[in-house]
């Protein structure tokens, strides 16, 4: 079957297995006799992390196993989606401790990428809220892993891109909320320096993220809208948004080129006239603005697209971001929505992406001229001591990977010690020299 990630690049012809229980997963691993298999959740990773010749879709392992209303700990099978969790638990007054920008991801995928959200600076990554997980490593082994039980495997699996086994289930600590609504404030920044200052000023806000214009240059370089927010106090625990889906639903669907992108960026920036605007919005449009547009990934045409997300350390700060943004703006290849965020401290998970500093994510349509540009950005990011997010990546080189994740040897040693190398693999792990 033809399979691809969210960026629709690359595409592979894969054999896809769909076991319905952990026992069926183990039987399958037995039958495969060590031939590599790639775990697959909802395929929201952009590149080739979830792709391989043999893919194991977790899709039918989607049951809630237990919930403790005292502690808020939910124990669920790996294919339960974040959407499912919200739909079930928001009415009971619980929310996800960390959520990425789409709710169409599985618990397994969120763990494998150790995803972050708008609250990384205060709440860390998804796996920082995982009490324990059950990892299927072979036909006869399921290991409970946590920071205290099999800790090495735990820290390798969190952010380990599926290369240490199949996460069968996990226990996640949900967080109590009194409302499904968010009080949101939008701040306008006319350039890069202003937006970085705004992040510092608002660092106590639980949620913050900025949309940044990656096309404008000169004195407007890095003009942005910073969105901050917190759960509303008033009690209203409805799951469906009432009204008023916010941008960016109005994206032009016509061909993307530098003119349409520039126009969109300008419009988006100017949709807010005052420097500070407050609003009250449902969690849906606040956290998942793109989820209401089905299959928006088709917008980039038949060749697909890639998302480039990097982080540079806080110390490198303004000069690093300025140099990289200038390179992007100069290329004229930026995307509709580039997202900027200030990360908090790094955690102990070996291949986890976030480090304290600034992260920028932007989409690029796949075209031959793109790859030299991304190689150039890679070397800038690396020289500033930063790294690139594996779950978005489809093209980084082995050398780049090793510099991004200098503890890769430790990761590899854990895989080897547990007989996982080669058994769990992906196109990405081959490209980056792990398999």
């Amino acid at each position, binding site marked *: 079957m033809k399979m691809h990630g969210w960026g629709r690049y690359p595409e592979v012809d894969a054999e896809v297995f*769909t076991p*319905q*229980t952990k*026992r069926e997963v183990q039987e399958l691993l037995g039958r495969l006799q060590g031939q590599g298999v790639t775990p697959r959740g909802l395929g929201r990773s952009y590149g080739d992390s979830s792709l391989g010749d043999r893919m194991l879709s977790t899709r*039918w392992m989607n*049951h*809630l196993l*237990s919930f403790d209303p005292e502690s808020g700990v*939910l124990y669920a*099978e790996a294919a339960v989606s974040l959407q499912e969790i919200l739909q079930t638990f928001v009415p009971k007054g619980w929310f996800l401790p960390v959520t990425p920008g789409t709710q169409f991801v599985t618990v397994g995928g969120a763990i494998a990428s150790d995803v972050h959200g708008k609250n990384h600076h205060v709440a860390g990554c998804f796996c920082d809220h995982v009490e324990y997980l059950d990892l299927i490593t072979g036909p006869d082994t399921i290991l409970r892993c946590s920071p205290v039980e099999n800790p090495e495997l735990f820290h390798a699996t969190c952010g380990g891109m599926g290369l240490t086994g199949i996460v069968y289930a996990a226990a996640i600590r949900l967080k109590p909320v009194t409302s499904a609504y968010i009080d949101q404030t939008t701040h306008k920044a006319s350039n890069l320096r202003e937006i970085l200052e705004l992040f510092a000023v608002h660092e106590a806000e639980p949620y913050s993220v900025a949309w940044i214009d990656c096309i404008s240059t000169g004195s407007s370089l890095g003009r942005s809208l910073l969105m901050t927010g917190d759960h509303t106090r008033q009690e209203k625990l409805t799951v469906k948004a009432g009204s008023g889906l916010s941008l960016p639903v109005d994206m032009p669907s016509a061909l993307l080129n530098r003119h349409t992108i520039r126009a969109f960026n300008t419009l988006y920036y100017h949709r807010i006239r005052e420097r500070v605007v407050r609003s009250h919005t449902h969690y849906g449009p606040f956290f998942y603005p793109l989820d209401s547009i089905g299959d928006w990934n088709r917008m980039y045409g038949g060749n697909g697209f890639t998302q480039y997300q990097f982080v540079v350390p806080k110390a490198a700060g303004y000069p690093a971001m300025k140099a990289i943004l200038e390179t992007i703006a100069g290329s004229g290849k930026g995307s509709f929505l580039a997202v900027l965020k200030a990360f908090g401290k790094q955690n102990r998970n070996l291949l986890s992406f976030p480090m304290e500093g600034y992260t920028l994510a932007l989409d690029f349509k796949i075209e031959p001229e793109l790859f030299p540009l991304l190689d150039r950005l890679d070397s800038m990011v690396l020289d500033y001591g930063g790294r690139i997010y594996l779950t978005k990546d489809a093209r980084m080189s082995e050398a780049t990977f090793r510099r991004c994740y200098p503890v890769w040897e430790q990761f590899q040693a854990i895989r080897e010690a547990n007989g996982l190398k080669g058994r769990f693999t992906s196109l990405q792990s081959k490209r980056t020299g792990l398999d």
Partner: protein
Amino acid sequence: MQKILIIGATSAIAEATARLYAAEGAKLYLIARNDERLQLLAGDLKVRGASSVETALLDVNDIAAHQGVLDRACASLGSFDIVLLAHGTLGDQKRCEEEVDAALQELQTNAVSTIALLTTLANMMEKQSSGTIAVISSVAGDRGRPSNYVYGTAKAAVTTFCEGLRARMHKHGVQVLTIKPGMVDTPMTEGMDLPKLLLARPEMIAADIIKAVRKKKDTLYTPLPWKFVMAGIIHLPERIFKQLNL
């Protein structure tokens, strides 16, 4: 609090339906043949808010066991507000053409077992004079197609049986709902090369089923466009239909 019996409860469509009822606080009695998955589902429904979940194992082709299992379900729930029959297999049509046993097995699982279950259930429901019997048939029963006519034959039998049963039960205040899904993305259709756009998600079917039960409908095409597609297909003259390789 609705009291709901589901046979073939581990079917993806039945699971999705059970989850919606669980969120409303229903009391559920689940029957299926795979204990591991049955227990997973039972746990899931409890977390979602079911007030109670009981389970029983049954291979629907073990007809002799029907009465006992259904009696126990009835004793446990007290009475049935809703009974959903969801078991089924989409056998290999090619094999059914080559081996008589394969064809008969398909008819057994998809028609004979269902008719047997319905016969027993109808008598139980007739006595209580209330409730709903909802049966998952298929659009495949609306017309015999070369790609799946053995399965289609079984579903046609179920549809016709339900039609008669409906008229009988109507006098007793029991609703009989025939559910005819189009193509649904479930383990049954896994690996088949079906156009993504035509594949409905089980959750959509579940929401339609719940609505049709509530509205006391007789027949449900789900998703709705299949109603019009099948109206067209039913009315195609045979001389044209036989040339199409549907």
